[in-house]
């Protein structure tokens, strides 16, 4: 019985190791179980997210209310009612503004975009991904580019019928081709694990290229994912590891990935001019 137990344990560990190995690489399709769990949890996440933002609006309103009450004691009671309403309106207005910018982006863009709202973020401090409320039925496919009005957000990962995972450009699995705006030299923007979504690494693709703090990086347009010239970020630090080793830069994305609420997915790249495949 003891031997059987050990054999079962060994087989279980082998199966789990296989599972980890299979899911450690980029996958376009999720398993049935994963899809089922995600479809089950998605509405709850959406609801919680919306409830949280409403409550956040109330709390922000309450804080503002306290400040206003200090300034004007007589109008305290009246302000309470007005401020509660105002905070909800402000939240709606802010969301409206973000959506408006996204709509402008979709209308002005020469390629097809689908706007999506972020309903969840990765429950893991080491992986940088978000979940949006648009999926396969909205023409979202794996590996499509994701942008915001300020610039690149990342690429689509696994997709279900009604939601999609977006691998942020700061995630360790992300790699996006770019060029330095000042010199036009090609670079590769790679994510860094555990960087809390703040930074990415810029690697040089041509020997002899010089990286400078403040250099802006935009998409190269050499892939069928992003059009040319979409802003990615600005180089904050330049590291030179040692003699013979290639220097690399630390890039801060133009998009504030921590506060992002809406994104746009580039679904049709046929409008892109003279694009070559990756």
């Amino acid at each position: 019985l003891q031997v059987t137990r050990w054999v079962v344990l060994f087989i279980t560990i082998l199966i789990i190791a296989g599972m980890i190995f299979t899911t450690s690489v980029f996958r376009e399709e999720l398993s049935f179980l994963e899809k089922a769990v995600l479809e089950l949890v998605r509405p709850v996440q959406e609801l919680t997210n919306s409830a949280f933002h409403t409550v956040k609006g109330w709390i922000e309103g309450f804080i503002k209310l306290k400040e206003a009450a200090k300034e004007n004691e007589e109008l305290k009671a009246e302000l309470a009612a007005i401020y509660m309403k105002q905070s909800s309106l402000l939240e709606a207005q802010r969301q409206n503004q973000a959506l408006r910018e996204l709509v402008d982006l979709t209308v002005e863009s020469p390629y097809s975009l689908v706007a999506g709202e972020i309903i969840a973020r990765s429950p893991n401090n080491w992986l940088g991904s978000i979940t949006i409320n648009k999926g396969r039925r909205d023409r979202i496919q794996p590996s499509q580019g994701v942008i915001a009005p300020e610039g690149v957000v990342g690429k689509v990962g696994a997709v279900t019928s009604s939601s999609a995972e977006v691998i942020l450009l700061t995630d360790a699995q992300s790699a996006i081709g770019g060029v330095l705006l000042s010199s036009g030299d090609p670079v590769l923007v790679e994510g860094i694990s555990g960087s809390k979504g703040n930074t990415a690494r810029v690697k040089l693709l041509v020997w002899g290229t010089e990286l400078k703090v403040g250099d802006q990086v935009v998409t190269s347009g050499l892939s069928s994912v992003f059009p040319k010239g979409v802003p990615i970020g600005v180089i904050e630090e330049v590291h030179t590891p040692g003699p013979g080793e290639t220097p690399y830069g630390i890039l801060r994305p133009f998009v504030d990935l921590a506060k992002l609420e809406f994104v746009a997915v580039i679904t049709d790249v046929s409008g892109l001019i003279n694009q070559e495949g990756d």
Partner: protein
Amino acid sequence: MVGWRLCLLIAFLLFNFFVIALVLESSVFCFLTINGVFPDIVAIITILFGFLRGPRQGAVIGFAGGLLADILTGRLVGLGALIMAFIGALSGFMGTRFMRDRYLLILALIAVCTVLQNTLYTFGMWVFGWQIPIFDEVFGVLPYLIIYNCLLAMLLYPIISKLNHFMEKVAIVKPKDNKTV
């Protein structure tokens, strides 16, 4: 004797507990961060349940919670489950040896388990070919994670303790001949 209905009830309760924890983590706590780090509620639940219910149940609870979190993340599925099972078993082992009402001990356990869990996870990521700038990032994430997890554990411990008390209470089934089984 613990019947299958009771097992189902406990499993159902825990499943819901984990789902709520993961939903909160992915849609609420990701906005309530300390220096960009959000707490690991599944780990906190695993450690506290393991501490109260022993190594075997701690491992099972940890594995279930970890697997659910892995499935929601969609990457390295199984790694978190294995590590969480180990953490659950470890805290269960500690629970059998120490007094359960010492908050300081629980906080120390949360801190140690958080460090262990994240070290093992980043090591696992490295084994499976992920690039991890260990020193920069671990030291940038871990201290905040420990503080956040400890703070949240203090709030969650009374709730989990009550749930455990309920589980212990319903586990005592009195048959018709008045014998306690």
